[in-house]
């Protein structure tokens, strides 16, 4: 088991784990549109499948928030 930080909170995960795996694990909303930073570096969407997380990584999921209602 390894510890990573997701959106500011500790999360225990089993490595190896890619960003795509983490998205599924956390039931992320807007999986096709979410933006991800790992250790404050932006990760390209094309690399989500291959990006492998390691112990202590800090992951931030950033969502589109367009507005309240129509």
């Amino acid at each position, binding site marked *: 088991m390894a510890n990573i930080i997701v959106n*500011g909170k500790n999360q225990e995960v089993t490595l190896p784990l890619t960003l795509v795996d983490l998205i599924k694990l956390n039931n992320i909303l*807007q999986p*096709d549109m979410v*933006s991800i930073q790992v250790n*404050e570096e932006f990760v*390209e969407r094309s690399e989500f499948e291959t990006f492998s997380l390691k112990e202590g990584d800090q992951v931030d999921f*950033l969502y589109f928030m367009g*507005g*309240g209602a129509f």
Partner: protein
Amino acid sequence: MYDFTEEELNRYSRHILLKDVGVEGQERIRAAKVLIVGAGGLGAPVAMYLAAAGIGKIGIVDGDVVDLSNLQRQIIHTTPDVGRYKVESAKETIQAINPSVEVVTHRDFLMANNALDIISDYDFVVDGTDNFPVKFLINDACVMAGKPFSHGGILRFEGQTFTYVPGSACYRCTFDGPPPAGAVPTCSQAGVLGAIAGMLGTIQAAETLKYFTGVGELLTNKLLTFNAKTMDFRKINLKRHDRCPLCGKNPTVTHLIDYEQATCDLASHKASNK
């Protein structure tokens, strides 16, 4: 120098008393020109607080009329305003709060062919809009024109905001383009707790005032996000990226774009009211 009337000294006394503002800060607020895009959920609290603060000139861009469903959160409009143009209703409220504010109404929608022209007259822009295409338009126009702005978005119970000044991270540094038109939340999800608009809009108003008075640190290179369900507030560090399609080393976005607007039953119902 610092030519304030007795009435102004009284009106702005709670600003002047602050060590970090004083008459010097109030003078800067009075000289400021702010454009608010959208007289809706976010634009409403922004406009009201900036009017109360004594911002010299407030421009408002909105082509819509007030709808009954707006009143749940767009507190600048009241029941008798239903059916009126939002900019007219907003102007009236602003003047009632503070008659010395100069209000310029732009009864129009911000588009690629008018954005640069409209923003040119202002020192700071506030994004109070509710759709992605225009959020990217505001970002792009402000970055191109070197105008600082406040980005804001809310959805359901959450909100997020950051402030841009030339050289800091822009919207495209994090989200390189708008989501495809078909990927918007379905209408059943397109709700928002009214007070969330107040929570975020007021933060945007505070950032605007901080910009002019120089107080504290702006939310530049930071995304402030909150979840009102838990009242968790977080700041995520952002960076200006070399690969950003707009402000990076090799920009691919070189002109303003009118992206396709999302359609949804609620939106087209609103569109048919015009």
